[in-house]
């Protein structure tokens, strides 16, 4: 008790004698200089923790590999996703439902004749004599793009709506949250299916070039996400802001005289940022999953444009004879969804000090 009592007093006195510590302090100062900027400090701190998490690192590697493959493959593989395989400029009708790394009869003849080695069908071909690998690559592109953009849409709408509701409080909050409740209580799959049917008819009538090039189904998927899936994000952000607002450090900042702008910038945003990032990371796989589901039931992207879901759907017909055609897109979906989920969990562990330990 006595020694602990004198401790602070000694320190208080040492305020004036810092000279003796001078040598040491320069070392320290260097270190402190390094980490002076607060945003990078927090970011680096989190990244270091993320890199220590083997599952998160594995997910990042898997995602990088997948994204690398889908960017590079179309330039390397000499087949198109909607073209029937051609040998010597003629359509090769024998290249139907080939096994992975097998060649069709015509192709083998051609190779014997010319001695030229044709690019292998890494995942075989489908029932319409198209190279399956390139179709899976394009399907993954579509699915990832849909997932990413849908999540960004959800992020923007949800964060704006949620933060307005959370800041404003009172009657504004009450009304905004009842709207969220109503949207939340709608059976989402039913609404999605109904909406995409209606939207498809509406949109296919328009001549808008952007919509034309995207495909009406893609546009309706985005609209559906924009209309329905932001509510979860909005609720989360609102709750987070209410929670942060009730913390005494906000009161402390006000007691210091910090203006509202500064309080929002340096306390509220940094404290809900991790929740937003994590939720977005977890939103991507859920969007991919929904898109795949819609494509699987035939409401998704339009043929011949493939998506992982529509590929899986197409593979159902020949399931008995050619199971690999279901396995490839299914495994890709699983890998992507799992990797994003594990990455999201890793981000949460790394960037949320409250949940640490």
């Amino acid at each position, binding site marked *: 008790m006595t020694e602990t009592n004198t401790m602070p007093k000694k320190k208080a006195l040492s305020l004036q004698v*810092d000279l003796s510590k001078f040598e040491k302090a320069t070392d320290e100062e260097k270190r402190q200089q390094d980490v002076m900027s607060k945003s990078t400090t927090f970011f680096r701190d989190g990244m270091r923790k993320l890199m220590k998490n083997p599952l998160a690192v594995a997910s990042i590697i898997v995602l990088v590999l997948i994204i690398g493959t889908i960017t590079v493959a179309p330039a390397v593989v000499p087949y198109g996703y909607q073209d029937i395989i051609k040998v010597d400029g003629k359509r090769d009708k024998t290249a139907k439902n080939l096994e992975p790394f097998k060649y069709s009869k015509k192709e083998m003849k051609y190779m014997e004749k010319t001695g030229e080695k044709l690019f292998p069908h890494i995942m075989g071909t489908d029932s319409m004599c198209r190279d399956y690998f390139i179709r899976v690559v394009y399907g993954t592109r579509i699915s990832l793009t849909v997932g990413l953009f849908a999540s960004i849409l959800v992020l923007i709408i949800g964060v704006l709506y949620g933060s307005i509701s959370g800041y404003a409080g009172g009657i504004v909050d009450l009304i905004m949250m009842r709207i969220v409740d109503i949207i939340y209580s709608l059976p989402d799959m039913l609404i999605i299916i109904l909406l995409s049917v209606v939207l498809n008819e509406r949109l296919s009538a328009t001549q808008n070039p952007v919509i034309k090039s995207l495909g009406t189904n893609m546009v309706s998927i985005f609209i559906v996400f924009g209309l329905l899936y932001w509510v979860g994000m909005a609720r989360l952000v609102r709750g987070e802001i209410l929670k942060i607002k009730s913390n005494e450090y906000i009161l402390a900042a006000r007691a210091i005289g910090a203006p509202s702008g500064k309080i929002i910038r340096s306390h509220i945003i940094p404290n809900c940022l991790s929740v937003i990032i994590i939720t977005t990371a977890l939103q991507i796989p859920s969007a991919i999953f929904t898109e795949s589901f819609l494509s699987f039931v035939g409401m998704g992207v339009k043929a011949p444009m493939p998506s992982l879901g529509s590929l899986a759907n197409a593979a159902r017909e020949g399931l008995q004879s050619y199971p690999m055609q279901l396995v490839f897109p299914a495994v890709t979906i699983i890998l992507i969804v799992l990797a994003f989920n594990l990455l999201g969990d890793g981000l949460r562990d790394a960037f949320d*000090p409250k949940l640490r330990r």
Partner: protein
Amino acid sequence: MSNETNGKSGYLVEVEDLKQHFPIRTGFTKTTLLKAVDGVSFKIRPGETLGLVGESGCGKTTVGRTLLRLYEPTDGRIFFEGNEVTKSNMREYRKEMQMVFQDPYSSLDPRMTVEDIIGEPLDVHKLYSTKSERRDKILGLMSLVGLNAEHATRYVHEFSGGQRQRIGIARALAVDPKFIVCDEPVSALDVSIQAQVVNMFEDLQKQLGVAYLFIAHDLLIVHHISDKIAVMYLGRMVEMADADELMDNPMHPYTQSLLSAVPIPDPETARKQKRIILEGDVPSPLNMPSGCAFRTRCRYATERCSAECPPFTDRGNGHMVACWEK
């Protein structure tokens, strides 16, 4: 009490008839006023400590926060060095009046390093010209409150409750205030650490000459640190006197019961003293008894107590009591 004399009165902080009524929704459309603070007055001299005690929920925190205009007062006036503190000029007084919070966990931003927490008031009031001056000030404050300067770049979740409270004190001291509201600064700490932190508050007062409004529900701690003690019950003050006077000669029945519950180190006196156990519960602040709020639990209550609220009057030597019977 007149305002003209305030400038010469020599008081640092004066609070006159402070009221804080929170509207509470009690039905779908009905709101009731919760009178968290209902007419509290006190004065504090420079370098002096006023202790504020009372059961939890009696409005101590609200007094402190309303005094710093973190809540807009329903009524009442606040003076600092004789000048009225209003909504519009409060910003100037943020450098003079600070607060240390009860909860050492939620009062520090988990996203910030110790350095940035203590530096925030310096940033807001631009109290430095160079980065190195800022750091020197921060490190000086850290050693002032007994924190290791090497921990400046750590996040708060790495610290213990006592250390966190020191960080909160350093933040309050950063603007070099003349007055600090300490809202139960030791209640959340282990008993062994409480003494350390209370001693630190005393040392800082000696060193820097700050005045405190020291809120606590532990009478022993308050007696240890305070020059004067005020006792609150359900939003009103029931007794205020010099610390020793209040401990030796409590007049209000509520103060007497609080004191009788304090453990006494001397067995001789302890045996002589009888514990006064209060009957019943604290009434809901939404549904306060008429007249004296304490009458429902008071042994001496009469009809007069329910009819009229007793005034807070001086019984000699500045010993103020609000009771009809004492």
